[in-house]
């Protein structure tokens, strides 16, 4: 802390120290958990609040590698598969709808004028408030969960794509017209390809809400799924299952985001360096 100490705002960690101070909070949390867990289990060995890692491991091993006595399924994988299927279907539908709506409203002023107010209002409706309506209209099956995810994130993707489309320099649109391009040619050849990497970015940003709607829908009405399981075992205070499930969902979310980012770089190498 001498006189030559830099101002805080100019202080930048080196690469190694950045990794170390980045990992530190994780280690700290783990240590705190282990110490607290040990302390509680020492007092009451059948305590369920903070299970030891060995207990969590056992619980997940049972769920993942031993068939369920009731159904014969490997519950953990069955839950994962169902949830990912629902999330994937919902996000895919939202991406397609959002792309079409966003591209058309962003590119065509007439469509924009007739669609934008509606889109703004729809995006203000809290999607979870629509869940009862969905249950009534499309029933309690898969459709209602997928629809909830789609309804929940379509407005976000549509508005994001709309903005991205409008951000494409008008010079390009004028240029294309001076080369003889028609409206459909401009949409398909000039705007759509430049929007695709933005669409993947929008999907990445909306996946958080996607998981939220998925888990909410599964919690309320389902027979399997990661969200369903968490809410089911809550009745038995089964923290040894809930905590690993939450960690697993987090890991899945991270992996999906990571893969989409990689996909973006692989498919659209030109999009890294701003406009031309």
């Amino acid at each position, binding site marked *: 802390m001498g006189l030559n100490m830099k101002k805080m705002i100019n202080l930048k960690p080196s690469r190694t120290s950045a990794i170390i101070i980045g990992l530190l909070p994780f280690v700290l949390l783990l240590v705190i958990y282990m110490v607290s867990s040990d302390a509680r289990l020492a007092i009451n060995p059948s305590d369920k609040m903070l299970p030891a890692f060995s207990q969590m491991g056992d619980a997940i091993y049972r769920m993942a590698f031993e068939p369920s006595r009731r159904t014969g399924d490997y519950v953990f994988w069955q839950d994962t598969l169902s949830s990912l299927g629902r999330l994937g279907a919902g996000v895919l539908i939202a991406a397609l709808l959002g792309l079409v709506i966003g591209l058309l409203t962003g590119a065509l002023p007439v469509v924009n004028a007739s669609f934008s107010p509606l889109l703004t209002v729809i995006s203000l409706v809290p999607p979870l408030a629509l869940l009862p309506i969905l249950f009534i209209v499309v029933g309690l099956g898969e459709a209602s969960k997928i629809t909830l995810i789609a309804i929940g994130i379509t407005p976000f993707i549509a508005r994001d794509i709309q903005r991205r489309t409008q951000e494409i*320099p008008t*010079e*390009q649109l*004028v*240029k*294309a*017209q*001076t*080369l*003889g*391009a*028609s409206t*459909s*040619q401009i949409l*398909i*050849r*000039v705007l759509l*390809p*430049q929007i695709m990497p933005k669409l993947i970015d929008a999907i990445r940003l909306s996946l958080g809400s996607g998981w939220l709607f998925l888990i909410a829908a599964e919690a309320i009405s389902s027979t399997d799924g990661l969200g369903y399981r968490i809410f089911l075992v809550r009745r038995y205070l089964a923290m040894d299952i809930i905590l690993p499930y939450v960690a697993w969902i987090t890991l899945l979310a991270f992996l999906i985001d990571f893969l989409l980012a990689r996909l973006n770089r692989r498919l*659209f*190498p*030109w*999009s*890294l*360096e*701003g*406009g*031309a």
Partner: protein
Amino acid sequence: MSQSIQTKTAASNVKKAAVTPIIQGTNIGKSYGQDIILERVNVSVQEGEFITLVGASGCGKSTFLKMILGIETATEGELLLDGKPIPNEPGSDRGIVFQQYSVFPHMTVLENVIAAKGFQKSSITGYLFGKEKKVAKQEAAEMLAQVGLGHALNRYPHELSGGMKQRLAIAQAVICKPRILLLDEPFGALDPGIRADMHALVLDLWHKHKLTIFMVTHDLKEGFYLGTRLWVFDKLRHDPHSPNAYGASITYDLPVGHMPEPLYDEIDQQLRPLTKMEQPISSME
């Protein structure tokens, strides 16, 4: 000097008689609400002319270019293309090169030019297939060799220098065989050395493809060196208390190549912002 100001439209009266001018404007004005940008612009341009537009910034030269392009319309007067009112949207008879954003960043150099060929086709997507594509590819490669990009066919625009991007933009425009080529400060962001190369390229293409060129530039020297005719945009009347009360007009319309030295200096002086600031003071005396 006042002599030369009065004889300012001497340039284009040569072969006006029989041929319809490709561009003709009478009493063109442009205003946004209270702000008047252009007023009383009268021009007549024959096919094959190479006109450079100079003037201080905000003097409406780009606005005039955009009127020919079809993305701005005159609020007064009439602008004719081949004797008919100019279309109010861009079309393939009028090519454009902007200072930037003139090429498609998601296509390689070659694809950029092939796409330009594809857009000429009236299909939904403008994609070319089979023999058509082969021919377009051949033609595009030749065009790119002509502008000096033969070695960079598979690069993306973000991998090109500023000068190369503009060469690509020009190749794209020229391959569509426009009758008029509009250049909106195309070399404004380039280094002086590269600019000289670009001048040579533009003059070469102008000869080869018999284009009518309008080029906006900040650089008076460039305006004099290139082309056949120079337009100076400036305000004839000036109200120091309300700078937008009067619009700019074409104050000089000169044939390039017959320029007396003092007149060059006079225009040069006029375009400098310094003298602009002095003008209102002297007019108040």
